[in-house]
């Protein structure tokens, strides 16, 4: 650890300059921007923009869809990755291959998967074959509300592995003796997971959950790939609203919508920041 070294600014300067130019300045400029009226005089109008945007029905639709999609994705990713990581805590034959199969999609571009996804979710496709085999009616996956299913599955397919890897790393740090003791006491698999593992990895669990939540807000990429720029109402996300407003050069609306959304993200982030997961690094440093 180096203290009272002025040279630190030499290391930080290039990075900070870039962050300042491309992230900080736009961010704070945007805050001010959302409070003005966007005419030539650019009068300060307070929260008028926010009131207008919140009353806009398309904005409400986008916000509702975005929240619903991320509330669909985040818990699924969280629970699945926790269970899989628990199973992977002990080594079995071929688990290296399995981990690779899980993590590989994380690097794969969503756009390249579109064509195979369309085949799988076609009216006569593989997914409907399974549905019929289970004794249900065929589903129109690519229309209406059902369109969310292929999108969410594409998102989970791509992002599950990374959460599993983070979880596995945390689980391997849990002392083995705890499990042996619990096994002696007669605790079953699920009991062990929820009474020992979960409390032990709580900081990580929270990090994974928040990352899953926040990243799920970025589901736009998958929606854009499958649904296009003007998708069905059921998957019209906030980002579509902003992109389309942006195309109409309605910058005030875009930023206002964006900051309404940012408030949600920042609240989540503050919750995360309060947990040890991030701070333990600081006290150690």
């Amino acid at each position, binding site marked *: 650890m180096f203290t009272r070294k002025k040279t630190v600014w030499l*290391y930080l300067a290039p990075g900070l300059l870039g*962050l300042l130019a491309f992230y900080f300045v736009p961010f704070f400029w945007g805050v001010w*921007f959302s409070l003005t009226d966007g005419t030539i005089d650019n009068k300060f109008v307070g929260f008028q923009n926010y009131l207008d945007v919140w009353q806009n029905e398309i904005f409400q639709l986008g916000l509702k869809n975005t929240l619903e999609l991320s509330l669909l994705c985040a818990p699924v990713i969280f629970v699945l990755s926790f269970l899989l990581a628990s*199973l992977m805590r002990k080594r079995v034959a071929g688990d290296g291959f399995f981990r690779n199969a899980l993590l590989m999609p994380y690097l794969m571009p969503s756009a390249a998967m*579109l064509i195979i996804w369309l085949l799988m979710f076609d*009216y006569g496709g593989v997914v409907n074959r399974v549905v019929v085999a289970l004794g249900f009616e065929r589903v129109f996956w690519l229309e209406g509300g059902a369109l969310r299913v292929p999108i969410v599955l594409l998102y989970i397919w791509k992002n599950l592995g990374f959460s599993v890897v983070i979880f*596995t790393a945390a689980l391997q740090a849990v002392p083995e003796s705890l499990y042996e003791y619990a096994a002696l006491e007669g605790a079953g698999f699920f009991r062990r997971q929820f009474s020992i593992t979960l409390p032990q990895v709580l900081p990580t669990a929270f990090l994974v959950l928040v990352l899953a939540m926040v990243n799920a807000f970025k589901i736009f990429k998958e929606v854009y790939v499958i649904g296009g720029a003007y998708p069905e109402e059921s998957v019209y996300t906030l980002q579509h609203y902003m992109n389309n407003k942006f195309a109409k050069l309605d910058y005030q609306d875009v930023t206002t919508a*964006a900051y309404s959304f940012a408030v949600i993200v920042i609240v989540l982030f503050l919750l995360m920041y309060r947990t040890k997961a991030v701070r333990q690094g*600081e006290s150690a440093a």
Partner: protein
Amino acid sequence: MTDMKPTQPTARGEVIAPVIGPDPTLAYGFTPEPVRQPVKPLIFIDRPEPKRRGPLSRLRRHLRTLRHNRPFTIALFCLIAVLMLTPIVFTFLYSFFPKGEITTYLGLRNRYDATKWLDVLFAPSVVSLRQYYTILIEEPQYLKLFVNSAMYGAAILLGQTLVVPMTAYGLSRFTFKGRDTLFFLVLMLMLLPFQVTMAPSVMTLRALGLLNTAWAIILPGIFSPFYIFLLRQFMVGIPGEIIEAGQMDGAGTMRTFVHVVLPVCRPILGAAAALSFADCWNLVEQPLVYLQNVDLQPLSVMFNKINEEGQAVAFAGAALYLLPMLLIYIYFQDDILLGVQLSELK
């Protein structure tokens, strides 16, 4: 005297020497049959072999090994692995189908006829490289986008190599006033979706004269807060002793950085490079907003637009699009796993 077979090891693993020839204790004119068993080499076995050697006991033994190896877990893992890999495998498989066959096959989609199914094709009538030929040689438009994407990826990686480790080093191994606030801001930026700062970013880029140029993608990409965060979390975990040992030997901050910190960070640097390139390869939002010029667009944005025109080569296009990522993953897989395991993400 004893019924114990002499060659059988005892519980402690010793082998009693077999009695060969007439037993001196049984000198009644009755000679026991000499023990024919050959002397086994001295093998120390703790557990005596099972007495019954029937197929049943063998089965039992197999079952025990199987239970020990957790068959249900393995079966579940296999199932999930197959589900995860199927889309990738089929993309590559279909890329070797002749163009005509693919066009016919894709034409069978969207028949809303409850009596008909879309067959799953497993093998082409004839293995063909025609799709690849069309994409790579006949129509250069795909290749151009491919090159664009690769160029963005390479430029961003190069810039990040110069900037990100230094920034992370400053944020992790120094103490100075306001460091925690600074880190807090970096974290916050990392979590914000791109759309939050989209409009002001466009205006900033326009003010800098970068809008509609390749730099509009490259420069914000270089300073991506996520990678600063990732490297910082790893560097925080480096034991202080290593750094102090260097300081004792008179290493300054620069020498420590180059000769101590960077080599230790090898796995996370590999992981960050792989993830960053993947990010860029998958870039959709930024080019859509920052670039009006079609010539500058990366593959990720244009990919599905080309496919609408030439469905026959869609699979070869997708396969070529996946291939670099597949290779990068295979090359960097250990780094990604190790990097995440060792950093303070957990």
